[in-house]
């Protein structure tokens, strides 16, 4: 890890070019992306589109006290209050665009052109929070690093697929996360904690990183003796409490608070989402299947499970044939256990420059071991990791695989033929930009640091090893199997098999990423 540090210093010494106007340039990059997003407006969108439309209708037509109890549509409001307020804010404009869109009953499954344009535009516009976040984070970096990171984040194929095709507001939420991280990185802990608290009131899934925030802020912000520390703890505490009070207070007042929490934490869902996210539980399930199969072969009487992994916990039935059943508490324990090393690190040496890594790692743990994880959750760590992708060659290599795997694991979200070339092109374009950017970045820095030492030069160069190549070729093989071979072999039968293959194959990549991040965290000081 030492050479990279040198590079960084060297880069910092280069006087920042005065002629550049970073705001203008980042705007340029993001506006180019915006043009692509505009073109994608009529493309396929998932039921999440109707979910958000329904939330517009709920917040527009009903008083606050009924937001979380309405059941007109099955897509009930299950995000925290700030997000509901955000929808409320949007619904004001929505009602001007097309009043039926915000009508609780007539609006159900309403898809007029203005509705589609309006909703897509809200995502496109709210994405500028992400642009601001990434701008704030990179403003102290060298010019080249900065531009490369912008491109990595703004043209992230995962974000494009999930936000601008599938339909969600991740760009906006991740933007807030980046603002919070940038505040922490520059030592402004109070602002960082405050923004994170706000983020939690927008989407509670981000709470996975809360333990890291807690430990870090406690040790970094609240230090300097008992009295000063306590004073700071009070300041931070009151900031966070204010945010939560603003969010949940009104619902408490209306006696709705239980209903709000009930909606936000639907533990009635299964261990896995309909399409299995590529995480640890995929291995667990497969292991169970294999064991059951072997036991049956050996003559044991194994009862076939009656419940499915994706369904809720109904009675005592278990989806597993042999292995013990997994409950939400167990996954919770796993996640905490996995985060523990990073918490210990944060407790011992709370350093701002490590915080991005820790937060990303916490989200990785949540993704790998969490309950009912969506494949989209991988964006929560892929996007923050882009910021540190240029710290060292290893980081760059890891990010290269991770972002490809994460984007590929999102492919099944878009299953219609029309979007197929779009998702492939988005991935290819991003991968080639990444490859070109990383290899030229590390070629130049390597030349600067180790001109004489050929060995070190090789080590600091961005090259994809044979194992990495093999993995990527495997990815291609999985895709070819799913698109071409499977339909020929089975025609319409076993439609889940290609999906399962993608899940399993990507789970290996994700597992590697998790272990690699863990190792980095333990290793780095």
């Amino acid at each position: 890890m030492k050479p990279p540090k040198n590079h960084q210093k060297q880069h910092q010494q280069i006087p920042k070019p005065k002629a550049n106007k970073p705001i203008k340039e980042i705007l340029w990059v993001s506006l180019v992306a915006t043009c692509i997003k505009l073109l994608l407006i009529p493309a396929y969108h998932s039921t999440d589109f109707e979910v958000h439309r329904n939330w517009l209708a709920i917040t527009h037509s009903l008083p606050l006290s009924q937001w979380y109890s309405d059941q007109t549509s099955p897509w009930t409001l299950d995000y925290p209050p700030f997000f509901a307020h955000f929808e409320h804010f949007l619904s004001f404009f929505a009602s001007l665009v097309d009043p039926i869109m915000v009508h609780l009953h007539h609006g159900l499954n309403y898809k007029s052109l203005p509705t589609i344009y309006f909703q897509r535009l809200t995502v496109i516009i709210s994405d500028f929070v992400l642009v601001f976040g990434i701008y704030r984070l990179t403003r102290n970096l060298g010019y080249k690093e900065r531009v490369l990171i912008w491109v990595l984040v703004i043209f992230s194929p995962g974000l494009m697929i999930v936000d601008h095709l599938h339909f969600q507001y991740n760009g906006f939420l991740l933007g807030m996360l980046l603002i919070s991280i940038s505040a922490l990185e520059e030592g402004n802990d109070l602002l960082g904690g405050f923004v994170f608290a706000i983020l939690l009131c927008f989407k509670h899934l981000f709470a996975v990183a809360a333990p890291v925030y807690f430990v870090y802020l406690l040790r970094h912000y609240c230090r300097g003796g008992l009295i000063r520390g306590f004073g700071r703890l009070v300041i931070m505490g009151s900031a966070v409490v204010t945010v939560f009070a603003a969010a949940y207070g009104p619902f408490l007042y209306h006696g709705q608070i239980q209903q709000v929490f009930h909606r936000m934490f639907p533990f009635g869902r299964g261990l896995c989402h309909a399409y299995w996210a590529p995480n640890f539980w995929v291995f667990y399930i497969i292991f169970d299947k294999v064991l059951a199969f072997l036991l049956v072969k050996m003559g044991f009487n194994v009862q076939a499970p009656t419940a499915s992994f994706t369904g809720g916990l109904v009675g005592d039935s278990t989806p597993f044939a042999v292995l013990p059943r997994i409950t939400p508490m167990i996954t919770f324990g796993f996640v905490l256990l996995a985060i523990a090393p990073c918490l210990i690190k944060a407790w011992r040496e709370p350093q701002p420059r490590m915080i991005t890594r820790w937060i990303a790692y916490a989200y990785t743990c949540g993704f790998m071991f969490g309950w009912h994880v969506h494949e989209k959750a991988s964006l929560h760590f892929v996007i923050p990791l882009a910021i540190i992708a240029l710290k060292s060659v290893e980081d760059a290599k890891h990010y290269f695989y991770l972002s490809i795997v994460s984007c590929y694991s999102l492919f099944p979200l878009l299953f219609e033929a029309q979007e197929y070339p779009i998702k492939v092109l988005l991935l290819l374009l991003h991968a080639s930009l990444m490859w070109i950017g990383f290899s030229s970045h590390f070629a130049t820095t390597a030349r600067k640091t180790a001109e004489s030492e050929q060995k070190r030069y090789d080590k600091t160069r961005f090259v994809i090893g044979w194992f990495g190549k093999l993995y990527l070729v495997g990815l291609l093989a999985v895709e070819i199997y799913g698109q071409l071979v499977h339909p020929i072999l089975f025609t319409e039968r076993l439609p889940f098999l290609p999906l399962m293959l993608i899940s399993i194959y990507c789970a290996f990549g994700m597992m590697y990423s998790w272990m690699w991040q863990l190792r980095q965290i333990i290793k780095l000081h």
Partner: protein
Amino acid sequence: MEKKKKATNPTSDDSESNLWSFLTPRGTTASFVCITLFAILVRVAVSIHPYSGAGTPPKYGDYEAQRHWMEITLNLPVKEWYLNSTVNDLKYWGLDYPPLTAYQSYIHGLFLRYFDPQSVALFTSRGYESYIGKLLMRWTVLLSDVLIFFPAVIYFVTVYYSGTHDGPKSGNMWHFAMILLNPCLILIDHGHFQYNCISLGFTVAAVSAILSDRDIFGSILFTLALNHKQMSAYFAPAFFGYLFGKCLRRQNPFLEVLKLGLAVLGTFIVLWWPYLYSLEAPLEVLSRLAPFERGIYEDYVANFWCTTSVIVKWKRLFSTQALRILSLVSTVSTCLPSMMLLILAPSRSNFLFGLLSSALSFYFFSFQVHEKSILLPLLPASFLAIDEPLIFRWLTYFALLSMFPLLRRDELILPYIALYGLFVLLYNAPVQRKDIRETRSHFTTLKYFLITSSLLLHIVYLMVTPPRRYPYLFEAVMMLLCFSQFFFIFMYTNMKQWEFLKLSSQTVREKKNI
């Protein structure tokens, strides 16, 4: 997405300050790859929008025409493609492009039949529209584009920048992106639905071949373009003038001309072979290519006939026969000066300007011009993007405006806005170019005025209902505005060509003096 990845010279001081510096050290190939991928992405994204005539029986639009040609070529023998018969009703989108278009339809028809036989079944497929059918049709355009237009543009940029032209590499990449991401071409081919990428692709390749002194190869390529769309004849005077002028300066002019002539003739014979069994057959095909019965102009095209028809009612004053002659005479006489100048001073730059001015004179004066024909002058203008950025930008803006009513009918306003924006962004990309910044002169105010009024016109056209007495008022205003700008460009290019002549005679004189 970086379309312009710029490869700046690493030794120059400002390599650090270039937005594209992260891509630099990998050289031009990397940049080509990224721009190409981006250009394909834009095309695919445009292709999810509606095509012309979607869901509008009984005649639909260009999409149905192309599909119908696939149906005809696939199911009938070659000889009957251009003949009216019970199964081939020429009134319903009869084939009216030269044989290469027919062969291309046949090949694409095979592709469609493999995946969706219903979509090209004889007769029963009329007006066939389906999700998969649209996708397959879109992919045929995309494939043609990627296989013909893209390589041709790469060829052009390589040739254009080999040798004499040096300057920041990022400029080359910018130029590449400008030609490849021409908003008008993308909107017409991948939105409206046509295969201009094929004939324009052959033209680009022909120009590149000729610029690299492979005249015979270039002539063959241009003949292919001509045989895909007869509109490629817009460029013919420039090709002829430049090649003829070049031959005259060689040792054995007669032999050189003969070689080129044979190459062209040979290509024609090969392409028209199925129709050469009798004397009448090729004439019958030819008569299909010249739709004189459709009148001298249609809709509101920003050309001479249509614009002046506000004052002079051409269609009422003259018979079609007379108009044919009038249009022929005016077209020839307006492109003649440019051609003569090329013969007298055949230089590479002069050739590119000649292409632009002859395409414009055809656009203004020839018979039956469509809005889409502005794509032809736009192509040589994009070749000149580095040398004449203002001309290129201006022509693109007003070409877009002139196609706006058409694209509005096709419900392509959203991609229009997105591509307009993308063009403005890419044109103004933070890139180092070989430095011809547009000079800030007294024209600035005028430029802003024109641009603002063109933007306002878009909005007015969309939002305001025209007065009942003049339902086409806004179309007419747009047409007048565009015509005036095109005409200004036309005058400018001709002037430029005069300068080239003066320049070349000067050099000759200097040489003599020495």
